[in-house]
């Protein structure tokens, strides 16, 4: 690939489930991306400011503890104000509390501005393939 896209990873809000985002980050690096790994418990604001500093092309958030929806209240507006409307937004994990049908969850989080929403135990490759597709579509790869 000509240009090396920059991707930010981390778990949002107070989520301490860091293993997934670690696995994901390493996989992204191995796939040739520049990864800014923020680790666990990243505030929405931090995602935004780091995205601005690093001119990130995508943010891949994780959240397993079930509080993602609350953690992301107003996030989409903020990122728009910050002029990050163009940044690709993915999120994955156990996004809600309890057993729920992924379709609903997907609707919910797309409404929050995410381009793609992944269920628990998603294979990282799947997500990375999607990312390449979306980046190519935007001519960023």
């Amino acid at each position: 690939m000509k240009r090396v896209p920059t991707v930010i990873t981390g778990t949002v809000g107070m989520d301490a489930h860091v293993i997934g985002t670690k696995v994901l980050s390493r996989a992204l690096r191995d796939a040739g991306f520049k990864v800014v790994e923020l680790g666990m418990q990243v505030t929405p604001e931090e995602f935004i400011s780091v995205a601005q500093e690093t001119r990130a092309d995508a943010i891949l958030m994780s959240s397993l503890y079930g509080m993602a929806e609350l953690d992301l209240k107003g996030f989409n507006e903020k990122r728009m104000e910050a002029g990050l409307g163009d940044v690709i937004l993915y999120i994955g994990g156990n996004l809600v509390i309890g057993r729920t049908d992924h379709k609903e969850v997907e609707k919910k989080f797309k409404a929050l501005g995410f381009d793609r929403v992944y269920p628990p135990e998603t294979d990282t490759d799947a997500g990375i393939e999607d990312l390449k597709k979306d980046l190519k579509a935007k001519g960023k790869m």
Partner: protein
Amino acid sequence: MKKLRISNKRIDDELLMKKRRAELDKWPTGKEVDFDEAVAYQKSLPDSKIWWKVMVKLREEGRMSVFPRAGTPILENMISLCQGLRDSGVVLIPVTTDSYTRLGQFEKVQGILEECERTGKPLLNGYPIINHGVKKTRKLVESVDAAFSPRGAGGEIAIASGLTTWNAGMGFLGFGSYSKNMTIRELAERSQNGMRVVGWYADRGVILCTDLHGWLPSSPFPLSVCIVCEIIEAVTAAEQGQKAMYPLVYCMGNMAQDLASIRLTPRLLREYLDKFGYKDTMITGTCPSQIPLFPVAMDMGGAFAYLNYICMIAALSKSNAVDLRSIDEGAGIPSRDTNSVSYRAAKWIFDVVREQKIELEVKDVDEEEKVAEIEIRTILDKILDLGDGDIVDGTIKAVESGVLDSPWSPNVNVKDKVLGVRDARGACRYLEFGNIPIPEEIKDFHRQKVAEREKLEGKKADYHTAVRDLWSFSKGKIVGIPPYNQ
């Protein structure tokens, strides 16, 4: 051997009382706590609500209880959840608190809690014990005939409410699994600042029990570091006046290894508690606990089998408690129904298998126990060495130098230079030893076991093997034998 010490700057009682108040003043419900009234209330509790007594009774009667996870924000639902547990034979009930409470964000919790109560929706991933306060939580305690334990948070509000456990000592769980920036020194200070709350209650005849978590191995990784940390937790807690405790023993899925850990942990705990002079500290039992990833919710068959495997281990090892998840562990916070059916399965095994008083000998248990014991003693010696006899100083230096280390840590102050994989029989082995002081011959043992697997799989074990192994049990396949007919 040098005289063993635990550094401990004890503060005077007046200051202690001030600090306790200050802690409670963080939220209005703190006012509900009157220390002496709390002691009186604790003393008024029946034995069936006192954690350490329940465990001892279970052990004496050769029984076992599930020690589940249970936390939902709305009081009424929490009560019915716990009653459901009691109906399926659970007599050790946790009050799992939500993540915000764990982080002291009571303001935020209050808002959400009110929304929960308005909408009837559980918008928090646990029971916000601080915001609910004493009166409400006593209602919970009084409506279910079982012993309660606060999980993750609670402080003296929990005690005043009639919950009967307290975590003193250096809690590695918070440091190793829940926090991002805490330093080991901060952990040591926090647990060493002389807040002898548990001792204060003990002096007044109220014995609060604790479970020892050690450093949670969030992935297939040998237990030696974890057990070392449970020993550190135990002696530092005892130093705070904790008189009753029991270890969680993480079952990683290999029967020989699991049974070995269950036998080894309480034995070494007793030995080191005595060594440090805490002969009067009770070990109230052992609690096998499930760690590896859970079968994805969709496969209920696998989920039940996994639960029942752990129950069999607990039953065969004659444990008196078992920290069990539900068939929905992989899916999300379990509902009352998924919990009940899960624990009814467990109860069947306890009543049918546990009560057969089966005496069994499993080959390799002795070997696994020996290996782990050597690792643990070597690490502890090194720690006492580093601390020049002071286990707390030693622990600080040990973590800073990676003598104590664990993989996949969220904490930036952890070396994270180690890695574990499973061997051909599913037992956990070191793939990367980092700076953990493991004797050469033991290292060779691990290498040889890993080599067996590599031979079987025809490729070297590496980082990617370790990642695959995160799922080896949840996907119901230990490494090795290829699928039938291939």
